[in-house]
């Protein structure tokens, strides 16, 4: 009987808190701006910026001092690659360097005078590639193009030389390539920059907008001298779990919608591959969102004023992106930052989203990440309860704390009256 009553009041309290929080969210323009506009528009914006994601036809200049048929063929073949375009033929290196400084070209291919002679003498002929390192993608393109053309040319020249050495054509072709290879890049065939980056950014947007929105609300409540953590009076300091689950439920419900939009609809609009099973991704998304809710609830406790979250934590967004391991590989993380990356749900959310949705793995492919997310959820749930408890304690001991502060100020000789004129805060 008593048990039943407890459950009933628990559920009623939970429902009240849940509704109250939803009302708070929807009546606050700033929070709606973050949740709705940023949550909906950011993903579109980033997709537009990284829409192509492929750098093609990087302009290079050639300086052909050799001026022989081999160098000319080499140049034609470079020009024909997808990666590089021969934008200028310069008479000397000075001219090419000037073009590079003017940012007209991003690489120089130089054939020395003896290039053709060395080839004729059966020696190794060396050509030089000067790559602009201002973006590594320029360098990558110039490298790939010249190296593939080189490998192709080597095959051709070897054919000639081996037949001169008295091999039959078949023998020669067998000697030239005793071991073949076949390379596959099944998930990202052209090393497209946008595929991995957008997948990562999408999940980070979920986490960051939720955190910013929740912090805005927490800051606002505090500015109005309420507290986001105030328990219903009748509970007399009990019932933290109700509050955490009630408030969390509101965000969880909202982000179910936003999260599904970001994880399913946005990639579909822009043609990002969605190779995974809908059910798997949805399950992952639910774990991730739950994790994000408790994560945001814990850390938003630090926010005392409405706007301060942007000043303090906006720079965390690019850092979170690095911590996912999508660009810089996780194996190369220094030990401390590896541990640090366990603070954020995004580290594991991004990895499992990429593994499931973009790479098309089954749920096992995100198994280890999901186990960590569950662990994070449990820890952050405990922490958010603790934060609410601490917040309550502070509210009930406000007078004592203020007295201490004043005493300190008097000791340090700070003119409180003049300060309040400027600050006009509290």
């Amino acid at each position, binding site marked *: 009987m008593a048990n039943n009553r407890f459950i009933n009041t628990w559920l009623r309290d939970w429902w009240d808190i849940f509704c109250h929080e939803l009302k708070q969210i929807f009546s606050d323009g700033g929070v709606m701006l973050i949740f709705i506009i940023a949550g909906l528009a950011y993903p579109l914006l980033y997709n537009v910026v990284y829409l192509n994601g492929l750098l093609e036809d990087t302009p290079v200049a050639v300086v052909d001092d050799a001026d022989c048929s081999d160098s000319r063929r080499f140049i034609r073949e470079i020009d024909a690659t997808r990666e590089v375009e021969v934008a200028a033929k310069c008479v000397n290196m000075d001219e090419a360097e000037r073009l590079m400084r003017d940012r007209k070209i991003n690489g120089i291919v130089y054939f020395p005078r003896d290039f053709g002679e060395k080839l004729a003498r059966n020696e190794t002929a060396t*050509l030089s590639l000067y790559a602009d390192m201002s973006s590594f993608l320029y360098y990558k393109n110039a490298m790939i193009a010249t190296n593939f053309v080189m490998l192709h040319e080597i095959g051709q020249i070897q054919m000639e030389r081996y037949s001169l050495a008295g091999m039959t054509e078949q023998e020669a072709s067998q000697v030239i390539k005793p071991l073949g290879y076949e390379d596959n890049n099944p998930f990202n065939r052209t090393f497209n920059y946008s595929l991995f980056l957008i997948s990562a950014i999408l999940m980070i947007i979920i986490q960051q907008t939720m955190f910013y929105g929740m912090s805005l609300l927490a800051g606002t409540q505090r500015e109005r001298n309420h507290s986001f953590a105030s328990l219903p009076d009748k509970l007399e300091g009990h019932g933290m779990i109700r509050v955490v689950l009630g408030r969390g439920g509101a965000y969880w419900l909202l982000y179910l919608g936003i999260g599904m939009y970001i994880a399913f609809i946005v990639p579909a609009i822009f043609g990002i591959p969605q190779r995974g099973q809908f059910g798997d991704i949805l399950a992952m998304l639910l774990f991730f969102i739950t994790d994000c809710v408790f994560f945001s609830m814990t850390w938003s406790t630090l926010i005392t004023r409405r706007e301060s979250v942007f000043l303090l934590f906006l720079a965390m967004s690019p850092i979170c992106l690095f911590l996912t391991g999508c660009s810089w590989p996780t194996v190369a993380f220094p030990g401390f930052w590896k541990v640090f990356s366990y603070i954020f749900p995004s580290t594991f959310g991004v990895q499992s989203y990429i593994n499931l949705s973009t790479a098309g793995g089954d749920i096992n492919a995100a198994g280890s990440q999901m186990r960590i997310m569950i662990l994070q959820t449990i820890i952050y749930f405990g922490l958010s309860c603790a934060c609410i408890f601490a917040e309550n304690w502070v509210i009930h001991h406000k007078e004592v704390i203020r007295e201490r502060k004043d005493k300190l100020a008097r000791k340090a000789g700070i003119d409180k009256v003049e300060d309040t004129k400027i600050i006009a805060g509290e």
Partner: protein
Amino acid sequence: MNNWQRILSVARRELRIIRNRPLYFMGSVGVIAFCAVFFLTFLNNGLPDNIPIGIVDEDQSSTSRNFCLQLDATQLGKVVRYDSFSAAREDMTSGKIAAVCVIPEGMNENIQAFKQPKITFYVNGLYFVSGALAWKDLLTMVNLTNGAVQREILRAKGFNDSQIMGMIRPIDIDTHQIGNVTTNYNYYLTGILLPGILEMIVILVLIYSLGAELKFGTSRHLMDTSGHSIVTALMGKLLVWTIVFSAIGFVIIMLLYHWLHFPISGSIFNMFLAMFLMIIASEAAGIFILEMLPVPRLALSVGALYSVLGLSLSGFTLPLEAMPPYIQGLAVMFPLRHYYLFHVQEVIFGAGFAGWWDEVIHLLVFLFVPLVGLSRLKNAYIHQNFPKE
């Protein structure tokens, strides 16, 4: 009181505010210090090494074992052995290994018999850097193995070593990486990311500093102090903040190019200039945003969106040419873009004034932008007729 004294009294007032709100200190010095420590230690290695590459060796011959040993011995790769392809593929999909390389059964015999066996490898291009590096490493190994086999054959046929070299490698490429000889990601990324974060901080802190006057209703006190001149008020505030941000900026430049010896082909003093110009241009951008939207909360949200976009649109990772044309034009709105172009000329090419003078002009143009909305801001400060939240 003359105007200079008024500017100083606004500056003194600003210092008092900074002392009373730890947020300013945390949001500027605290954030940049954390980011500097993060990026510099995170990317300290410069280039990742020991990237796990899965190998499924179905051959188990001396050649295949040698192939694995050689691959393991490269700086880039670290071999992880698998018994079945499906296990390896699963680990690749889940991101544990960067690539899978399958050595077919009978590879050794087939090489000896000139049947041209094929090594197959699969790369996970969604973990970008590790995938690309693993791919490069595997390709190099296959070519080296080919060369080794050829050398044996040619030796058996009685060629001498210098002839063999010409046979195996008729063409060679000698690559020069201008401005970053070792393909160091730390030099490449941190050199722009830290100024980028600073741009973000300048815009946000300045919007907050100017907006807080409206939010807490202290703007009339500010106008009284400045003798009811908006220009004087801004001057006083900017005096304090420009000194603070420039100090941070100069420390960043010193840190990167002097203490940590990042390569720079031009002069470090020119980079001080670039940094200073980027800071004042960002300040102008921040002021402009608040003038147009004298509601601190909205202005901060817009400032946040704007400054985060600046990192992408500076074009230092994905070059601007690869973005849609209508996005390319927007890039000039971001001070970081001009800083990056300046950086390319000075740090990478060492071109000096001739290379970057137009970027200086672009950055200076930003200073005229806030003039548009001065009266609007003054009205907002006097009438406080905008919503405070």
